[in-house]
């Protein structure tokens, strides 16, 4: 589904990604972790072309992201993305947040997109919040709406960029619950996160990044059982300490 082949990216002289290669098969859940500044967010934003890269190749469902001839908006409409800071549109109601993409991008009519939106709001448990504005919702609620907004486009895969990092601790689980349910439904997911409990319960594979490199790319049990690299061991010992 997602193939990342030898991708490198520079900000001026500084190389943020160094020859990263991996892939995500259909229905697979892949966790990307690593210390801050290791390039994991940058890598995931390269997948839907939000960040350009200078070398290598990424294909999503057979379509090359880096190719200048690729219709990026069309490709992005098929890949959902959830951001660290939610990024709901604050001047629109929750319902409008969920329908605007369906109407403007997919060309669905108003009624159809409303039906779809309410179905997804039910799914994330926020049906009665449809007419509220994002600013009146808690962080956890906003992130659930953001997930519903991405799902409203009927994506073939979902990208999550640290979806729980900006949340108060008591709200993390309500968001993770939605993501676990999504994973169990067979959604293809690439998730940048430090939530190792989540990784343990739903991941197929774990990718560990450090300084722009993919240091470890292993099956979940191998990664948590006996990471091969020293840096991954050190990272795990730090975050699994408590």
């Amino acid at each position: 589904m997602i193939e990342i082949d030898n991708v490198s990216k520079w900000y001026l002289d500084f190389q943020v990604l160094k020859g990263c290669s991996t892939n995500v098969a259909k229905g697979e859940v892949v966790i990307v972790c690593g210390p801050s500044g290791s390039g994991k967010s940058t890598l995931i934003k390269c997948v839907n072309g939000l960040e350009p890269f200078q070398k290598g190749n990424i294909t999503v469902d057979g379509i090359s992201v880096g190719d200048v001839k690729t219709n990026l908006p069309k490709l992005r409409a098929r890949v959902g993305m959830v951001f660290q800071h939610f990024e709901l549109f604050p001047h629109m109601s929750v319902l409008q947040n969920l329908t605007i993409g369906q109407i403007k991008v997919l060309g669905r009519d108003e009624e159809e997109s409303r039906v779809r939106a309410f179905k997804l709001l039910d799914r994330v448990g926020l049906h009665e919040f449809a007419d509220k504005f994002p600013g009146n919702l808690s962080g956890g609620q906003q992130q659930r709406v953001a997930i519903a907004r991405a799902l409203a486009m009927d994506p073939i895969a979902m990208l999550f960029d640290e979806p729980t990092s900006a949340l108060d601790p008591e709200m993390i689980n309500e968001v993770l619950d939605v993501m676990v349910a999504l994973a169990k439904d067979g959604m293809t997911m690439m998730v940048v996160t430090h939530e190792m409990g989540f990784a343990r319960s739903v991941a197929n594979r774990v990718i560990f990044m450090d300084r722009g490199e993919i240091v470890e790319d292993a099956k979940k049990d191998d990664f948590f059982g006996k990471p091969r690299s020293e840096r991954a061991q050190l990272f795990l010992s730090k975050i699994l300490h408590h």
Partner: protein
Amino acid sequence: MFSDFDWDVILRSLPYLFFDGMRFTLMLTALATAGGIVIGTLLALMRLSSFAPFSIVAGGYVNLMRSMPLVLVIFWIYFLVPYIGQWVTGASRPIQVGALVTCLVTFTIFEAAYFCEIMRAGIQSIPRGQTEAAKAIGMTYWQTMGDVILPQAFRNMIPVLLTQTIVLFQDTSLVYVISVTDFLGAASKIAQRDGRLVEMYLFAAVVYFIVSLGASIMVRRLQRRVAIVR
């Protein structure tokens, strides 16, 4: 000292002052604001474009306009545009554009430079993540701007935009240099015809004060109503 003053002159000239003078002033203010915001927003998008020729052209234009006195621009458009029109259309004589069109064009393109800077600040005040979120659901550049970024930028900037409009309302009095009769021009004519300079200029000052102050109080009220909860 006020006993020598003839306040009746104001009453007698009210219809002329307001139906001729003020109507023109308000019309010019409204049209130049509308046109200025549209052109200014396009200029702002050009200025923020990563395509260098766009940002250079828009930046040059804005800097040029902002370093010129408005009166000079009025003269330029008034005396130059007929010749440019002649050159473009290949006519044998300069094209007459008239004072009214000159006023409209001048104030619109002049204010566009200021509205550009306001809208640019407004667009830059919207977090980058909003653009990313709009793009991530497949929106094109124009959809991202039109549905997500500009509505927010515009709302954030409404107080500043309206304050600029109040300044424009006062600046329209400069049209006297090409003999167009706005509110101040009308007051001036009466004043000189009847030899009642002090009365008329006092009255004009009071009217400008009331309109401008009233407008800025309304801006403050509006500001509270349209603020976006984040």
